[in-house]
């Protein structure tokens, strides 16, 4: 719980187009942190944008540790969001050892988590959204960047329906998508029937005639201002996720289609143009420099939480974190068809401080009730901090890899570099819900097959290039594939084919041999017809066998040249 030190006192965000001021509240010691202070914001202008993204179906409060490593390459090297930990705190002038460090870094995470408690919860988000709407009833637009319908036990059991109900109840004004598509063409179409607001995906076309599948744009009027919101779905959905689930939908960045939509919106009188994007931060930073006329890009996909807007020319980029941990508020002064000023605040949703909204709390209770016994079923306990976020193996990934090696009797394990998944503190029970929070996908089969050393190298090189290609348009998002039983050295700044070296078979300490076959267990294959038990059963088996799990930090992956 909260101690006396390091509480939040809000110093108001003072942003201007000149980029002055750090827009994050300062947390002065000795002041009691309250909901009012979390929300405090001196309103500006005529439009308020509220943004959440990548909540990954997390309805209830959780722990979420930010990454300790997020390597930037090419033009993004050393720029936010490719700064972590102490350097991040220093860059934004944030206090170490307090609420700011807890919310935005990995520094002292386990200790601070006990002090400040859980984050997120849609009932808490609802309270904050309603408070802003009450203050700015005619000015507020609430936008969801997608990755909303997937990532939990209940979203899997209801095939996304629980989230549609909740997002409808929150009064969402528009959304875009990525993981939503992994429910497949038919289910997405069904859910859209239930959705009470626009589902925007300007960059999705049918594979026959390249015709739009979804609405690309929605227009709103707030505070007397005409606002155009263009939705940009994750461009590489059919590459990063199974194509067979959505065989007739084609994606891509489609820069020219974004420009065409912006130009059309302006011609039809839009005074404020917003791109609600699931491109990922670096892709959006590049796009902002190439597409003219976007005022605001609400970024998503890469789960970055930045306490200040990033500007590219006249375009503001906002990064609102993930898992319901933050609510972004951006006030804009729009006059004569241009943004004259802005004020921004990334508001952390500290679950112990924000009062749950009773209406949404009741709805969450209702959707979880049929699954309560399974959600709460305890499988074991962890002695270690379990987390995933970061470019390379996290401790939760190491646990999954260990489960694959042992339960599937394999020599090497591969686990996908997803960026979603809640953290668990040392000493916490591990429940079925916790396992699903890091594994819940619609293609969960844990395969077991043989791969040559040469093929394993190809896999590592291919994934590394999807993460570290110096041109963001060739990046696919996600992090490096996680490995068990295998060590390697990576130089992210190298070219494809030259990043990976020193591949080692950890069981013997011998180098991986190109021609030799290894037994590999993995999950989340994008290939149709993959066979094996669901990954959550594999992980459950491992945890129940061991009762208490402990994960030592993985030192088999060495990063050089950064």
């Amino acid at each position, binding site marked *: 719980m909260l101690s006396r030190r390091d509480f939040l006192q809000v110093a108001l965000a003072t942003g201007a187009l000149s980029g002055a001021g750090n827009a994050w509240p300062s947390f002065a010691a000795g002041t009691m942190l309250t909901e009012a202070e979390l929300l405090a914001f001196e309103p500006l202008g005529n439009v308020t944008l509220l943004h959440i993204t990548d909540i990954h179906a997390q309805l209830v409060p959780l722990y979420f540790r930010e990454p300790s490593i997020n390597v930037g390459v090419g033009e993004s090297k050393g720029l936010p969001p490719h700064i972590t930990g102490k350097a991040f705190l220093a860059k934004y002038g944030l206090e170490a050892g307090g609420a700011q460090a807890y919310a935005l870094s990995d520094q002292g995470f386990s200790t601070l988590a006990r002090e400040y408690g859980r984050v997120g919860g849609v009932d808490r988000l609802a309270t904050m959204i309603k408070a802003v709407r009450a203050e700015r009833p005619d000015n507020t637009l609430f936008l969801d960047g997608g*990755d909303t319908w997937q990532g939990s036990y209940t979203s899997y059991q209801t095939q996304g329906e629980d989230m549609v109900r909740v997002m409808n109840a929150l009064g969402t004004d528009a959304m875009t998508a990525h993981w939503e598509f992994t429910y497949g063409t038919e289910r997405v179409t069904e859910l859209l029937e239930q959705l009470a607001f626009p589902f925007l995906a300007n960059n999705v076309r049918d594979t026959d005639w390249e015709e739009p599948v979804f609405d690309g744009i929605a227009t709103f009027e707030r505070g007397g201002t005409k606002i155009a919101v263009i939705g940009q779905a994750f461009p590489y959905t*059919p590459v990063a996720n199974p194509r067979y689930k959505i065989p007739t939908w084609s994606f891509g960045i489609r820069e020219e289609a974004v420009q065409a939509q912006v130009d059309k919106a302006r011609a039809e009188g839009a005074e404020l143009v917003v791109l609600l994007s699931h491109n990922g931060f670096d892709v959006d930073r590049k796009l902002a420099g190439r597409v003219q006329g976007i005022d605001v890009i609400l970024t998503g996909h890469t789960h970055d939480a930045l306490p200040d807007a990033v500007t590219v020319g006249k375009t503001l980029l906002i990064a609102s974190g993930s898992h319901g941990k933050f609510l972004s508020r951006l006030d804009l002064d729009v006059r004569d068809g241009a943004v004259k000023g802005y004020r921004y605040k990334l508001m952390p949703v500290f679950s112990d401080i924000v009062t749950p909204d009773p209406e949404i709390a009741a709805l969450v209770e209702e959707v979880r009730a049929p699954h309560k016994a399974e959600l709460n079923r305890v499988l074991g306990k962890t002695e270690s901090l379990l987390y995933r976020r970061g470019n390379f193996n996290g401790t939760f990934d190491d646990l999954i890899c260990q489960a694959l090696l042992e339960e599937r009797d394999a020599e090497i394990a591969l686990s996908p570099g*997803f960026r979603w998944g809640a953290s668990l503190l040392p000493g916490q029970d591990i429940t079925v819900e916790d396992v699903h929070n890091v594994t819940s996908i619609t293609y969960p089969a844990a395969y077991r097959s043989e791969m040559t050393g040469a093929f394993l*190298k190809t896999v590592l090189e*291919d994934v590394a290039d999807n993460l570290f290609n110096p041109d963001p348009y060739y990046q696919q998002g996600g992090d490096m594939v996680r490995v068990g039983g295998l060590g390697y050295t990576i130089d992210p700044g190298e070219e494809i*084919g030259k990043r990976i070296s020193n591949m080692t078979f950890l069981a013997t300490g011998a180098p991986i041999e190109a021609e030799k076959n290894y037994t590999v267990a993995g999950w989340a294959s994008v290939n149709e017809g993959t066979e094996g038990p669901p990954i959550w059963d594999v992980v459950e088996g491992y945890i129940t066998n061991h009762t208490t799990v402990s994960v030592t930090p993985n030192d088999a992956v060495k990063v050089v040249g950064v």
Partner: protein
Amino acid sequence: MKALGLKGKTMEDMTRRDALAFAAGLVAITVLPLPVLAAEETAMDEINKFVGGGEAAESGRVTLETPEIAENGNTVPLTVMVDSPMTADDYVKRVLIVADANPRPGVATFHFSPKSGVAEASTRMRLARTQNVIAVAELSDGSFHMAKSMVKVTIGGCGG
């Protein structure tokens, strides 16, 4: 403006990139380099044949739209557009499309006349692996213009 000489070995950046891909091939699979080299020469041969001793410039007049990363290497959409008034005096005659690392690099040749109205065409192609797609346009004044884009073919997975 970058000129692309077609007689000598002056496709500098393309050669460098392919050399790297070639090196990668050597590490992963030891038998592939020969066909890759052969394909590269054939792509240049195709272009040389098309321009017949002329020189194609990256003048910005040709726009080549391809996905940055292919969703399916077996059917990659492409659209090529050439900025031209398409009048009897000034029009686009032909556009050649080549994929520089395909076993058969020639993808298509589109023929236009002033009656085409606009010099634009779309098709789909198969790409064996990550490579450059090159469009070369021949105009009625005898000049050649080109555009190039790289399409990545990946095994996928892991995103998100």
